[in-house]
């Protein structure tokens, strides 16, 4: 049977025609590679734990090595997958409005799951916050750094939204500058977070193991920081694709989905600042 474009005439769409292995409509190695990479990360973490102690059956470096190697494999798999599923032949692929809808619903469902991921961490924080407060000495939380970082992140949402409007008007130049601005703001934000960690850990002696609030603080901000970084990766992919000439006023689904993700992460940050930074300081009768 032929697997050429003739399939568009209402027949079964072959999802993976040009994929590796080439020439098969429904076969791709990338999911398998991606999954092996992801599983390897877990195995690496497991090996790390197994490698602790004196009689450990594996060396202490086996875990980290497997971990890093697997991340490489995961990235390779993700690249192959995303490339073949979305990027290659962008303009030839006829993308009905339906497909965009699918991706948006996928993103909405994913954001729902993210809500739950954060939910457990916030659940912990509210749990300890409802108990005797403060649970120990708190570091200086609300300062100019948090304020500045918050402004940066809010600003980045605005620039991204602006960029999104520009691509809808087909103004590529403005779209690109908006994207770059957003990305820069995001990266500065992450830098600010790293600096804050440095201050807390080195100067205030406030770490992950500093008891109840330390667990909550580093757990939640760490989780959030990971999300900002991931969002930056999404935006980076969008930027590269833009520079390669993709997207138009009609065709920019991944701009929309990446924006949804970015705005979500932004909202989580504001919530986090209010309850974790400000909330820890107000009302806590010594």
């Amino acid at each position: 049977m032929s697997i050429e474009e003739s399939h568009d005439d209402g027949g079964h769409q072959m999802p993976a025609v040009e994929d590796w292995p080439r020439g098969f409509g429904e076969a791709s190695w990338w999911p398998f590679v991606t999954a092996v990479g992801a599983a390897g990360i877990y195995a690496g973490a497991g090996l790390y734990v197994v490698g602790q102690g004196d009689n450990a059956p594996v060396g202490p470096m086996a875990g980290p090595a497997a971990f890093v190697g697997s991340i490489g494999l995961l990235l390779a798999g993700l690249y192959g997958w995303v490339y073949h599923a979305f990027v290659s032949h962008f303009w030839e692929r006829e993308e009905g409005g339906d497909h965009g809808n699918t991706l948006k619903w996928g993103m909405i469902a994913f954001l729902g799951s993210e809500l739950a991921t954060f939910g457990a961490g916030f659940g912990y924080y509210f749990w300890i916050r409802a108990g005797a407060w403060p649970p120990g000495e708190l570091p200086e939380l609300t300062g100019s750094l948090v304020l500045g970082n918050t402004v940066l992140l809010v600003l980045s949402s605005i620039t991204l939204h602006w960029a999104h409007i520009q691509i809808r008007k087909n103004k590529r130049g403005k779209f690109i500058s908006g994207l770059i601005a957003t990305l820069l703001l995001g990266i500065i934000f992450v830098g600010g977070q790293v600096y804050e960690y440095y201050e807390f850990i080195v100067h205030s002696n406030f770490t992950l193991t500093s008891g109840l609030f330390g667990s909550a603080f580093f757990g939640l901000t760490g989780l959030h920081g990971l999300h900002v970084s991931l969002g930056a990766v999404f935006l980076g992919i969008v930027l590269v694709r833009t520079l390669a000439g993709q997207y138009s006023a009609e065709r920019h689904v991944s701009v929309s989905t990446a924006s949804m993700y970015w705005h979500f992460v932004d909202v989580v940050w504001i919530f986090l600042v209010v309850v974790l930074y400000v909330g820890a300081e107000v009302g806590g009768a010594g």
Partner: protein
Amino acid sequence: MEITEQIALTVLMGLFLVGIAAWLARVENWRTYSPVGGGATGGEAAYGSEEKPSGLIRWLTTVDHKDIGMLYGAFAIFAFVAGGLMVIVMRAELMDPGMTLISNTFYNSLLTSHGITMLFLFATPIIGAFANYFIPLLIGADDMAFPRINAIAFWLLPPGALLIWAGFLPIPEVIPAQTGWTMYTPLSAGVGSGNQANAGVDLMLLGLHLTGVSATMGAINFVATIFTERGENVSWANLDIFSWTMLTQSGLIIFAFPLLGSAIVMLLLDRNLGTAFFVNGGSPILWQHLFWFFGHPEVYIIVLPPMGLVSLILPRFSGRRLFGFKFVVYSTLAIGVLSFGVWAHHMFATGIDPRLRASFMAISLAIAIPSAVKTFNWITTMWNGRLRLTAPMLFSIGFVQNFIIGGVTGVFLASIPIDLLLHDTYYVVGHFHYIVMGAITFAGMAGLYYWFPLFTGRMYQRRLAKIHFWLWLVGSNVTFLAMVLLGYGGMPRRYATYLPQFATLHQIASLGAFVMLAGGLVWTYNFVVSWLEGPHVEDADPWNLKENGLRTNEWAWFEQKRETAITDGGEESETVTDGGEKVTDEE
């Protein structure tokens, strides 16, 4: 010495794996003339052509929802056999009060692993098998919304299983987890004088997290598929019942599993990096809240789609449509929402605030209402119907029977004063096994028998199927009723030994388990033999659904596939075949 032994072992392991690969490849070749697997029956010989590679590579690279469904099914059944054999050893140990066959610690390891295997590696994946294979066919979609994510989600499962079972593998210094499937802190945090600080627990937690990621990816895919990939003639109003339950289930997974995932990460941090989430000054009881906020929805995650299967299958053999279809859908949605509001009924005995406790009791009792709505709908569907007692129908009826007992025992547990007496006794074990084995697994069997002709092109042996059913129906009721009675007598759960006064009931329970084992053997034999050499089905409507106007889309697809003998589940326009394809291998 040690080193050479290790190397030798590694080489041996490698050879073994290569052997398996070679054997699989051989099986694949042999399959080409004797169609035994895959989503398609006829014309598999042509897979050397352009849709899918042949042999093992086809299965490793597939992004076809039907193939992925088959992979899920194979994985789930493997896990079911593994978890089943674990419990057979446990039931053998429980034949007498003392510690005879295995040690207490090994019993606890099996207990933990049995629960986790059955819930996360069998129940969730077997649902994934049916859903992947049939949802796109039922709703007239080309495939799942994200075929590659679908494949990734599946391939996360086998490594997850390996990690979960890692404690049983011969890795020095690593022992199996003995925390129970609920992994209560502080025990699971590894503090204190126990042996649960062992890396085996960490590996299990990591594996569990990985399978959770897999389930979440699958759920996102189902939501996107059902929302946006429905065919032109499939509207919300005529969406089939199985898809409805899958949609609800996926919603539950999306909000429940990631929460468990975060809790697991917190536990891992507590164990390894000295954080204070649940121990080291943190709150052990918080684990229970987080766990059950996930855990109660989880029980509905694994029961709703089987309810959907029964709601789909039961009417086909009653000669009429599902009674009160709308109410079955509404009750599904109601259960989905309510299931997030009842978690503390697992914690009545922990001393939480009595006012909270009472409100959780109220919602738990309320959730019995939509459950009962469904039950009455199934019964009224059969009422005055023209029942055909085929194997899938028998298993569906068995489902209803067992679900009634499981549900009624649940309502009693939801009542605080009764629960305080029965909590942590065998009564609870009886209650949920009536549902997880008696109902969920029965529904899975109904599905497997019902669609056996569709995915093998052959018919199973009806006599053996009925023997299987009766062995399981009798076996499960003997075992689980004995457990309920043991609970009334005060027998606590999770012990390898017990007081002599419980001996008789324990022996009865074990007897029932062995009867189920026998049934399982009959089933295995029947499936393997029928798959290999059962008679080919004569037409594409083996259950004669057409005459009652009860045929659903997947059978229409089957008919088309048989007519055109194409291999990819295509539609009307795709009548082109490769040269050399055997179109007539069925008849």
